[in-house]
C-alpha cells in the first residue's frame, strides 16, 4: 500500500491489508482534522509533500519499527484538501501482543511527525490562511502566505 494518498483514507481498509491470521492485536492511530488550532477556528486545510522523499522516509520508519518490534506496520498519510473530521493519517501495527503494537504505533506516529516532509496550510474562520509551523514557539502568529 502506498504511504501517501490523495483520496480519503478508510482506516479499516488499512488494517484489513495488514493483519495476518496469527495476529491477535491491532493498534491504530488515526489523526483527524480538528476544528481549532492554537486558539484559532480552523475551517479546512491542505497537506502537500515532497512526495518522493515522504514516501521513502515513511518506508524507512516502517522498516525500522518492524525491525524493533515483532509487528507489521502500515502508514498512510493524506494529501490535498481536507475538511474538518477528515482522516489525515492512519498508523497501524498488527502483531501477537498488544504491548508491542501500542509501542510501535506510538513510536511511528512520533517519527512521521519528525522526519516526513509534509506541510499543512490551514484556512481559518476569517478566511485567512497560514502554513503551520510546529517548531514556532506557542503563541507565535502563524506565517501568513
Amino acid at each position, binding site marked *: 500500500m502506498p504511504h501517501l494518498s490523495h483520496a480519503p483514507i478508510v482506516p479499516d481498509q488499512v488494517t484489513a491489508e495488514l493483519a495476518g491470521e496469527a495476529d491477535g492485536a491491532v493498534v491504530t492511530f488515526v489523526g483527524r482534522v480538528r476544528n481549532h488550532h492554537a486558539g484559532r477556528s480552523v475551517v479546512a486545510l491542505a497537506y502537500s*509533500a*515532497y512526495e518522493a522523499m515522504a514516501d521513502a522516509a515513511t518506508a524507512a520508519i516502517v522498516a525500522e519499527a518492524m525491525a524493533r518490534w515483532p509487528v507489521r506496520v502500515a502508514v498512510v*498519510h493524506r494529501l490535498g484538501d481536507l475538511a474538518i473530521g477528515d482522516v489525515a493519517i492512519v498508523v497501524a501495527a498488527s502483531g501477537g501482543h498488544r504491548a508491542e503494537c501500542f509501542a510501535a504505533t506510538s513510536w511511528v506516529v512520533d517519527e*512521521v511527525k519528525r522526519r516526513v516532509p509534509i*506541510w*499543512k496550510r490551514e484556512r481559518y474562520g476569517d478566511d485567512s490562511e497560514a502554513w503551520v509551523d510546529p*517548531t514556532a514557539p506557542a503563541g507565535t502568529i502563524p506565517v501568513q502566505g
Partner: protein
Amino acid sequence: MTTYRVLLFARYAECFGAESLDVQLPAPATVADLVLALRQLPGGELLPPQPLVAVNLTQVVSDHPLAPGDEIALLPPLAGG
C-alpha cells in the same frame, strides 16, 4: 562553477515564487554554501539561517558536500502527522 537545482516546497516555494531554482556555486560546495547563496536571492531573506535540507531524499547537515546531479530540496518546518 557547478549548477545545482534546488527543489522548493510549501512556504519556501512561495518565498521565491518558484518550485525550483538553479544556483551556481564554485566547487567543492556544501549545503551551507548553497543556503548562503539562496539567502542572497530575492525572497531568500525570508529563509531561516539553517533551513532543513535534503539531498537525495535524506535530510543532511550543513557541512554535507554537494555533488553534481544531487537531488537537493529545501524543506520548511515539517507539519505532517
